[in-house]
Every structure is written in C-alpha cells, then in structure tokens.
C-alpha cells in the first residue's frame, strides 16, 4: 500500500463494475511527480476501465483516489482536468466536426485563454505535421494525425500528469516511432505519464515502472527494466 502523497496520483483499492461484469477489482497504484507508470494487460484486463474511473467517466468504488492532494472521488468529471490531469482517450475521440485549432482550444477549456496562442504553437512544435491542418476539420484527418491531435489537445492544458489510453492502437509502425519519440521528449521535460497500452514493448521503453493487469487485478508490478526481463511476462506479452 502506498501512502497518499501530496502530489501525484494515488489510487487505492479501485473496483469497477459494468452490470454483472467486474472489470476492475482491488487495484492500487501511484504515479509520483515526474514519474512514468505503465499499465499493460490483455483485452478485458481492465486497463481502460481504470482510467475511466480515475477521470470519473464511469462509476467506481475505491478506498481512495487522490491527485495532488485532492480527492478524485469528491471531484466532478468536468473538474478533473483542472486538477492537472489530461486525458488522451482510447480511440482518439477528437471532435470531428471542429477544426484542428478548435480541438486544441478545447484542450485548454478550463485554462485561461490568454496565452492560448503560445500553447498551441508549442503543440505545433511538437507535432509539426499538424500545423498545416490548423483550419481543417479534425474528422478529415487520418488515424495517425488524429492521434497526434488527441495528444496535442491534452498537452495544451499543460498538465502535471498526462494519461494516455492505448495511443499506439491502429497506427502504422513509423507513426508509433514518432509518438514514442514525442513521449520520450515529454518525459525528459518532466511531464508525469500514465500510459496504458497493449504494446508491452513500447510501454517498457517509455516507463519507469509498470503494473500488469489480468482480469481486473494486478498480477505483477515493478520496474519496467525488471519486468521486461521476466520470463513469464516475456512469454505472454512480448511473445518471446
């Protein structure tokens, strides 16, 4: 059990249920400031449900859930981003009918719009390929471009913790490289990250620690470097 820290994310004993299906059961973990945690697991393991619970987008029960000292359970879903956690949802979920710029502006909805222009420029620095689509409807972008937009949208709020749900899903290998490089750069800038992924190899390379979920429970956790060498993990998640 990890004691609540004044900063960072701590989750204790989280459970999520959909009807009769127990998606997550008794999960506890923490992400300290500047740290990068990975959550890997098969389909139905409960990874996405965990994230949705943290962002209060789905009902859940937990002993406690705190971010930067504030109780998440007492926070309304639309206030979570103000606490400093930004979400890159599974499947991108960009606003297809709005332009790329408006999508980015939405990322900063809860922040002051005064320096918005600068923030957006910083996102374009990170994703130069997006810049020419500034005025284009987001729905017309390809999957990879939409993924970049989704990450950019989350970054516009200059979050303390960036939470990504399967960013590599459905992307071409060359694009996954780009995204991995971007995430690595963010890490070196001190952004904390919570990365949920099917791609274990990618996750081990981008995180300090990892937890492995199976059927809604944590079955392994530890340093990414250590887990990567674990024979059981290698067999199931790396196919080696």
């Amino acid at each position, binding site marked *: 059990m990890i004691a609540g820290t004044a900063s960072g994310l701590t989750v204790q004993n989280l459970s999520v249920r959909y009807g009769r*299906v127990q998606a997550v059961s008794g999960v506890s973990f923490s992400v300290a400031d500047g740290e990068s945690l990975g959550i890997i697991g098969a389909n139905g393991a409960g990874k996405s449900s965990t994230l949705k619970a943290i962002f209060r987008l789905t009902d859940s029960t937990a002993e406690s859930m705190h971010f930067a000292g504030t109780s998440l359970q007492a926070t309304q879903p639309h206030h979570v981003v103000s606490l400093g956690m930004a979400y890159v949802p599974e499947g991108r979920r960009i606003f297809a009918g709005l332009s790329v710029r408006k999508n980015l502006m939405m990322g900063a909805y809860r922040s002051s719009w005064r320096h918005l222009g600068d923030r957006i420029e910083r996102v374009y620095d990170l994703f130069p390929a997006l810049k020419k689509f500034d005025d284009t409807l987001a729905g017309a972008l390809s999957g990879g471009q939409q993924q970049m937009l989704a990450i950019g949208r989350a970054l516009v709020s200059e979050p303390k913790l960036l939470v990504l749900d399967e960013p590599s899903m459905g992307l071409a290998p060359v694009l996954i490289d780009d995204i991995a490089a971007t995430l690595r750069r963010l890490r070196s800038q001190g952004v904390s990250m919570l990365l949920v992924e099917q791609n274990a190899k990618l996750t081990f390379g981008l995180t300090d620690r990892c937890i492995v979920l199976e059927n809604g429970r944590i079955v392994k956790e530890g340093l990414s470097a250590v887990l990567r060498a674990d024979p059981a993990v290698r067999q199931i998640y790396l196919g080696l």
Partner: protein
Amino acid sequence: MIRIGFGKPVLVALLLLLPIILDSYTIHVAILIMLFAIVAVGLSLVMGFGGQVNLAQAAFFGTGAYVSALLTTTYSWNPWLAAPVAVLATCAIALAVAIPALRVQSHYLGIVSLGLAVAFSSLLSNSDLTGGASGISKIPPLSLPGLDLSGPRDYYYLVAIALILIVGFALFVANTTLGRRFKAMRDDMLAAAASGIEIRYYRLMAFLLAGLVGGVAGVLYVHNARYVSPDTFGLGVMFLLLAMVIIGGQDSIWGAVVGAVLLITARNLLTGIQTYQQLAYGGLIVATVVFAPRGLAGAASDLRRRFDLPWPSIPIPRTARAAPPPPKLKVAKPSRQGVALRVDSVSKRFRGLHALDGVSLEVGAGEIHGVIGPNGSGKTTLFNVISGIYRPNSGRVFVWGRDVTGQRSFRMSRLGVARTFQNLRLFRQLTVVENVMVALDRDPAQAHIGYLIAPWVVVRKERERRARALSLLRDFDLHDVANELAVNLSYGRQRRLEIARALAAEPTILLLDEPAAGLNAAEQEGLKATIRKIRDAGTTVVVIEHNMNLVMNVCERLTVFGHGKVIAAGTPREVAASPVVIEAYLGQATPEAEAAL
C-alpha cells in the same frame, strides 16, 4: 423445451373475462385502451424495432378511420367490405410515407413524417369530401348475423380478439429473425447491410406493418365511436402514442401495451384537470427518459439481468430432437480455383480528395492477402468499395470472375463477401448470440412470407440458427457471454465477436479491417491461428493490418498503399525490403526501437 410464460394465458383469460365485471362506460374505456395498444404496437415495431422515426403513426390510425367512414357513409358500402379497403389504403399511405425514409433518417425523418402528418390533418380539416372540421358522423355499426355488435360488450370481444392476434403476431415477429433484422438495421445500418440485410426493403416493411396495424385500429375505432373528426388523430394523439412507446420501452411489444394501459387510464383519471393533463404527460415522459431511458420494459429486463430472474414459466417437455452438430468452421464451398478478387484501376474521390487512385490488385483463391500502408492511404476505402458501401468513380471489381462493381452491400454479402470494420460495428443492443444469428440468416427478405403461411418453419429455423450460433461462439470462446448485450463486452471480445459474426455468413472472401488492433502478443498468436484456420476451411482472407508480426508471418502476399495508390506488391519479404515502403511506412522502427530498449 418450449417455455410458455405463465403470464400470457393468464392475461388472455383475464382479458376475455373482464367485460363480465365492468360497467358499460368502463368497457368503452377498455376498448379505447385496446385500440391505442394496437396502434402503439405498430409504432413500436416501426420505431422501436426498426429505428424509423415515424411521427405519422397517428395519421395512419386516422387514414384507416376516415377511409372506412367515407366508404360506409357517402358511398354506403357494407362496413365489412370497406374495412379491408380502408386497411389497404392505410398500407398504401404508409408505404408512401416510407419513401422518404429510404434516404432520410433520424430526426430529419421525424420532421418529414411529422410534416406529412400535419399536412394530412390539415387536409382533413379543409376538404369538403371529408366533412371538414366537423368530420363524419352517423357511421354505421358493424354487424354479424346473430350478433349485434353495436353494444359495448360484443364490440369489446371483437377488439379483444384483434388485440390478441396482433400482439401475438407482433411478439412472434419481435422474437424471431424479422424482429432481429429490424433491430440490427436500427443499431448499425452499415453492419446490417454487410450481414445481408436489404435495408430499403426492411424500412418499407417496417412502415407497412405500422400502417397495417394502424389501419385496423382505425377501422375498429370508427365503427364503435360512430363519429370521426380531424381532432381525433391530431398531434395530441401522436404525442400520446409516442409517450406510450417511450414509457413502455421502445423495443418492447409488451411495453407498448402497458404504455397504452397506463396513459389512457391516467388520461381518464385526469379528466377533471384537463388543463394540466398535457403537463402531466410531458412530466411523465421527461421522468421516464431521465430515470429509465429504456422505459418500463428496459427497467424490467435490467432487474432480471441483475438478479438473474427468469420469467415464471411452465416448462413443456418435448422429446429432445438434437440439432445436428454443425462442423467447426465448415467449408464455405468446395475449394474454388482461380482469382477470388480482382480490383481493376479503381478510383474513388471525395470532394476533390483522391481516396483511391487507379488501384489494382489481385487475390488468388485460398490466399491470405495483406493490405498495408499508412493511415489515410485508402485501405479502408478499398474495403468499402469492394464490400459495396461505396461505388467507385471508375474502375471495376471482380469477385470470382464476376463483375460486381457498384453492387450494394447486402448483395455483396449474398455473393459471399463478408467483412469486419476498423471501428467495430456490432449490433450493440443485441446480445452476443443474436449478433451472430443475424449473420447466420441468409434468407432473402422475401422469405419472410413464411411468417404468414408457414410460421412453424420460422420457429424451426430459429432453433437451428441458435444452435449453430452457439457452436460458432464456442469456437471463438464467447460462449459464456452468449446472452450478454454486445455493448457490455470488453473491447477484445467485441473484436472477436465481429469476426465470428462475419464468419457466420459462410463467406468465400473475408475482409478483415485491422483485426489485431488492441490484442496482446498471446492473442495475436491466437488471431494468426484463427486466420489460418479460416483459410484452411476454404475462405480467402484479405487483411488490413499495421501489426508487422502478423503481416509478415501470416500473409502470403502483400499490397502496399500510399496516398491512395498502390506503391508496392509482392511477398512480405520482397515488400519489406523495398526502400519505397520503408520510407513511407515501415520506418527505421525495428533497429532503433530495439536500441532504445
């Protein structure tokens, strides 16, 4: 085993015994309730099941009433002759209203149908033929030799019989393949078409059923009330019907009936406070939508699900006639030779964007063919053209040598082409087994005539289909969630279900759009094995994928896309070595990533 619900025979008995204890006025109310229940059932079929926003249902009710009234007064027809004519006229009007539904859907259709209904009302009020605003009166009663049907009690039985027949038939439709096809169409039109459902036909059919039932109710109403005016079928009635279906539960026949009972009873109890009546209805609808969006029926089935309660029933033992066990992934057709799929210089433009530009490729019989390339390079558009969702601007598509260019989705399904979708298109409000059963039904829409002339065949096919569906689910390790709503499954299981559903149609060509998205290494191995098994059973497979592991190890030939064009084709080894492909798509991924790790 057939289970007959305790409920149904008891209800029928109650219904038939009721007039004995009720007074004349209440019987009139009961008749009105039953008539509304009939119309509400029609609305439930077209809107709840078929997903067609039909705000002209009250007008169908009105058409039946007015035509019958006109024929029997102005033209002095015998009511028993006028009745079928009136019902036919209503069916014709229903089909006319259905025409916009072929191209227009959702709230737009709502406004179109509502507008037509309002126009109808206005026509009735302003035309001398129909008696204008004062309507038609002195409508003759119905009579049978020996029975005086002008009395409430006898009329009650007439209407009750009609109700029992109609509800019985509606339940039969709802719980078998026709109802399921309606729901599939409602839940996801593209996936339904890809599963062999001819959408236009079913939309027309949904409206036809609604009109048929509304017309019958109209005829029965008019010979009881003996008077009809435009007000009887105005907007107020339409909203009342809508309320019944919403509160009862959109895709529930019983819900429509219960809704009718509740609302007419409420209306009668509230006659004292006329002014607040509409307010009360409005409040009730709002409350339902907020607290129980699936209506009473939805709440009931949620309770059942939560506590695992079956409906109370009497099991009727039957000598078990075991359904023949279907073979695992049975061979679709004796192995065909030659070219399974040929795409010849296909181009597809969207508002100036060349999604596909002169694309050609060939897939041999029994091949596992991979289609790779960056996002937005046209891969899914290619599938959409092949499976009939898009018509190409130029070029041709051949399936087993036959030119299928521009054929629509459902026809491609009939020709043996099945597919999965990049963004998962399951029938979310159907259960897992129902999703598969939809695809297992390979009968054309015309076969539904069986509902009228050979219902036992419908029942038998249902049983066979369910057995085969469960067996297929077992192959895909989804058997344990067979009765779970598809939307409640985890993402990975939903993906597996989509593949199972595509296979249920016994395709000769299977198009898989990014089947490995979201699978971990172990599951990818499983998918590879599944793809090989599918091919070994006789189906040619074309796969769009980003997962290089899968592509390199399973695909025999590859076609590489870039910006809507084919930039390379050949064996995986050849393609992986091509500098064009490496730059556009593969990247220097492997060595760099390894080094970083």
